[in-house]
Structure formats: C-alpha cells, structure tokens
C-alpha cells in the first residue's frame, strides 16, 4: 500500500508538469488553431533562464520562476510576431497554412535548440534548490520539491483560470479563441490577443521547465520527450480543453508510473502512448473534448 502511494505521488508530481506544458499547447491550439511543435524547446529555454536567474543572479527560486516566465513569455511574443504571424494570418487547422505552421514549428524547434546549444552548451546543468528535509509519511519520503511543484502547478492553473474567466482581457482572449472575425467586429484587438495567448502559453511552459529543473537537471535536449508526453496529455484530456490538459497530464503521469511499477519498469515511456492510443480508440475527442472539431 505504501509502495502504491509512493508510485502515485511520483505520478502526480511528474503529471502536473506534463499538464502545465499541455495547458500551453492547448491554449495555443484554442487561440490560434495551430499545434505548436516548438513548445518543448520553449520549455527548455524557460528552464535554462530559470537556472540563469537563480544561480547567476542569485534570485530566489520562486522569483526565478516568475522572471523566467516573463522573459520566455516575451520571447514567445517575439517568435509569434516575427515568424508565425504571416502563417497564422493565412489560417490554421486543416489548411495549407496550418500544415506550413506545423513545419515551421519543427523548424523553430531545431533553431531554438541550436541557439540554446550555442549559449549554454550540451552539458546537463544541475539545478540544486534547497527545499529542506523531505516529509516522512510512514515509510514514504516526500521531497519538498514535489510538494512545491504541485503547489506551483495549482497556483498556475488557478491564475490562468481567473485570468480567462474573471478578467476583461481573458474574456477577449476567449472571444478570439471562439471566432476571430466576430471578435474583431466587436472591437477586440485580435493580433494583440493572439500575441498574448502565445506569450502566456510560453510563460507557462517556462514555469514547467523551472519546476522540473531541480528534479531532472537542465539540458538542451530536455524538450523533446516532454513535448511528446505533453501532447499525449493534451490529446487524452481533449485537445483544446484547458481542464482536460491538466487532467490528461495527471493521467499520463500516473499511468506511466503505475505501468512501470506493476507491469515492467523497462521502457517506461510506452505507457503514456499506450494510454494515448486507448483514448483515441475509444474516445477520440479525449476526455473533455467535444466531438465536432470544426469551430464556429
């Protein structure tokens, strides 16, 4: 029983991180009708920026997360304005421009990875943060970094929820996500909202990167696997659904940890994608998705 609790704790701590990255992917998909394949590298950039703030400028860890979010968010806005705007203006989804956007995302992923390589090199960098002694619950040791990750994830989700549901800008973002033309006719600055959506999604990915740093260290290639898992989480939860992204992340994290614990620990990554296939077979729209994907 204690072992099961341990596996669940591991699943939840990694699952919330998958969920946060998936949240960004879903947010971009909701707002821009595009699947952003460079999101793993945005997550990696955020992690490195957090490391720079925390260790080079001695900024406290929580403030480093915030600083990394701001800088990465701004970076996301620049990327969207300079590189993606022409393509997204031509349309997303199942259009030729949508396909161009996917390819552009792959290209941006390679470019960002190489820029990071030039700046920070290929070595994995430790991200030690002193959270203090772990909590002990019976035989289970619960490192405070896990608790911190879960709390930070909850704060981020809550903050995003409040932003989208309780603020005027959030309302404008949701309007743009629903229908850009009507939003424009209602007087909303659609290009600005699109940049904002992209910036917020990138900032969230940066937070995930800084949160995972103390657990897994930081390196240039860290984005790829995270992107795959976050995609699985987004699809399991229902692509475009924000609560679905979080739930999907948790399910992927727990499923892969329990699979590794009780089926086979080798090739742990299979379980996340097995779950993805099962969901696509029996509920293609995901847990929180709607069946018709054609937007108004």
């Amino acid at each position, binding site marked *: 029983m204690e072992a099961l609790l341990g596996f669940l704790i591991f699943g939840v701590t990694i699952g919330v991180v998958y969920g946060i990255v998936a949240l960004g992917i879903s947010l971009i998909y909701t707002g821009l009708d595009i699947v952003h394949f460079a999101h793993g590298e945005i997550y990696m950039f955020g992690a490195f920026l957090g490391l720079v703030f925390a260790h080079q400028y001695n900024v406290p860890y929580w403030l480093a997360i915030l600083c990394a979010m701001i800088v990465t968010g701004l970076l996301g806005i620049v990327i969207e304005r300079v590189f993606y705007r022409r393509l997204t203006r031509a349309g997303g989804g199942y259009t030729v421009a949508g396909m161009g956007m996917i390819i552009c995302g792959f290209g941006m992923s390679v470019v960002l990875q190489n820029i990071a390589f030039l700046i920070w090199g*290929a070595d*994995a960098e430790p991200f030690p943060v002193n959270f203090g002694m772990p909590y002990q619950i019976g035989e289970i040791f619960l490192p405070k970094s896990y608790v911190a990750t879960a709390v930070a994830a909850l704060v981020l989700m809550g903050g995003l929820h409040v932003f989208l549901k309780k603020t005027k800008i959030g309302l404008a973002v949701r309007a743009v996500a629903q229908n850009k033309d009507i939003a424009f006719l209602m007087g909303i600055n659609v290009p600005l909202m699109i940049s904002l959506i992209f910036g917020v999604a990138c900032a969230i990915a940066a937070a995930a990167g800084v949160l995972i740093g103390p657990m897994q260290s930081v390196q240039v290639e860290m984005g790829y696997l995270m992107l795959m898992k976050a995609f699985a989480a987004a699809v399991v939860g229902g692509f475009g659904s924000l609560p679905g992204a979080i739930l999907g992340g948790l399910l992927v994290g727990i499923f892969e940890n329990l699979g590794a614990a009780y089926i086979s620990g080798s090739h*742990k990554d299979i379980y996340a994608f097995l779950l993805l296939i099962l969901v696509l077979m029996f509920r293609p729209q995901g847990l929180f998705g709607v069946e018709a994907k054609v937007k108004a």
Partner: protein
Amino acid sequence: MKMFSRGLVSTALIAGVLVVHTSAVAGTIRIGATMRMISENGQKYGQMVADEFDLINKNGGINGNTIELSLLNDECKSDKGVANANKFIHEQKVHLIIGSTCSSVSLPIVDVTAQARVPQIIPHSTNAKITQKGSAWVFRVPVSGRYYAGVNAKYTGENIGTKIAYICAADAASQNDCDAMQDQMRRQFNAEPAYVAQVQEKEVDFRTHMLKIKSANVDGIMIAALAETMSRALLQSYEAGIGKSVRRIGSSSASNAPVPKIAGDAVLGVFYTAAYAAADKRPIAQLFNQMVRDKYGIHAPDHDFSQAYDLVRIVEIALHRANLNLSDGSLAADRTAIRDAIASVDGYRGLASGPISFCAAPTPQCRDGNKTPVLIHYTKGGEEFETEVLARVPMPINFGLE
C-alpha cells in the same frame, strides 16, 4: 641546336631542382579522429589531442614528416561516426583513424576500418565486443569492460553484499557494463540480480525504479549509464529514500566530471572502476593534472583525458617505428606499416595505471592494451570533487573471455 641544348640544360636543371625539392619536402601523415565533442569535457580533450599532435609537429614531426590531423565530432552517434570514418578513408585517404570515444560508435567503425584495411586506435570505448570482432586493424588503449566488471564484482561481493539491483541504460557501453557485471556476480558469487531495469539512454525519471529497489532491500545498486543519466539516477535514489548504507556502484562513466557536478553530495561513496584517477599520486599523473588544469581549465581530468593523452604518445612511438613512404602509391603499405608498428608497442608506461601492450594477433588478448583497472570512490561531490584510489588491479589477460 644551341638553343636546343640550352633548353635541355635548363630542363635538366629544373628537373634536378624538382627532384631535390621532392626529396627534401617532408611527407604528411594523415590522421582522422572522430570523437564525442559535444560536452565541455569532450571539446577540451579533442582540443588536447589536436594540441599534442601540433606539439609533435613543432618539435620536428615524425622522422621529418608532419602529422595532419582532421578532427571531427561524431556526437556519440553511430551514423555520424561511420560517416566520419568513411570520409577519412575515402576522401582524405588517411593513414590512421583515431576513435571513437563511445562504444556505440566505435563498434560499427571497426567493420568499416577492417573492410578498408585502415588501422584504428580507440581512445575511449569499453564495450568488450570491439576487440572480439576479430579485426586485425583495431587497437584499444582503454581498459575493456570485461576487466572493469571483474574488479567491480569482486569488490562488491566481498565488501558490499551480493543482493544487487541494476539500472542499465540503453547505450552500448552501459549495456555491456551491466551484462558483464551481472555475469561476474554469477560466476564469482553465484548471485542473481535482485532487480534489473533497462532504461532509455537519456532517461530522466528513475523514481519508480528506485522505489521498487528500496522495497527489494538490496545491498547495492549498480547504475550503468552515461554521465548525465547516472547523475539523475543517483539523485533520485536519495529522493526515493534509499539510504547511504546501500552502496551505489557506477559504470566507468562515473569518472566523468558531470557526475559529481550534477549529483553533488549524492555522489559520495559511489565507487567505480576506470583507467585513471586524478587522485593518482604518481609524479607523471600530478604533472598531467596540472597541465590539463592550466591549459584547459579542467579541475580534475578523468580517464577520457588520460587515455587520449596515452593514445597520442602510443601513436607517436608507432609512427617513429613505422617505415613510411607517404606517396600516393604507398597508402596501403603505409597503413599496414602503421598497424604493425602499433602492434609492436609493448610495455608502454604512461598515465594508465599499468603497462599498455599490443601484439599482432587480432584477438582481445592482443588488442585490449590496458589491463589494469583502477578502483576509485568519490570522497567529495560538486565541481571541486575529490576521489580516492581504492586499488589498482592488474588483470589476467584472458579474464572474461572464458
């Protein structure tokens, strides 16, 4: 007629000058090196190899000939390593190939060099299969994984216990280290593994494995993985609540600087076998440490540095001995001469803890040069890490081949 004879004299003079010029101009010994140079350490030991050959040239070269080194990065990827080797052989017409520094790259290159009949000397790859392929063209400067496993298993069984869990990453060196250690634990102590996990080469989350290992009440955990992966596993073993009483055993990549740097205090007490320890008290080792520190800014060179340095010295000795023509028509003969000269190196003593010897037969006994693993453990983690040498163990030449 007068003009004709004047022209003839001129032609003869020019021809004479050309002949003199040709015989006076030194030949060029072309060497291609393919190494993993993506990390800071990798870039710096690659640079060290280039600098050492440069120094040989500045000091007069090899019997009046200069060495032309072409250094390429294979990023520890087998396809890039093979492409580099083919480029060296077919485009640059090299006389000798150095590399790679990863078993997964060195292994396929062995077939390429064997087919093209080009000598290959390896600075750092532990997979025992490299010399078991039977190529007459391959030489290994580092210690083979079969010797490491023997020493690790003996120390573990006699001092730690026989209930061992294994975490084995998917790269060729780690797989070989893991399998060889399990095999030796069976042979020496009749001990079956308490837990075995195969993980991705760059796995990031080991916590589930560690929790299962914790519940298995093992005496030790062997982590066979590349440096960054091993560091994460070490850290997460403590996160899962596995205490210090359970000893951590590293594969040879535990000697790489990123391990203590990333793992910090989690590296304390980790023991492993390698070919060289910066804690070595011999004057030659202290001088080498100082040189690497001053020239490349490396706090404590690991065996990647020492083996690359030993390799350059062995190549230098062999090239001095080889009777080279260095003309276009003598390429095949020159390659054979270099191979035979390397095979004649016997009892070279450098930074390695024991002598390095080769011989002509294409067998592991002849081509695994260094037979003296060093047992080392960490006494301090972090960037300013410290190690201690527990033992130097000369191994029987046939060990692990039965």
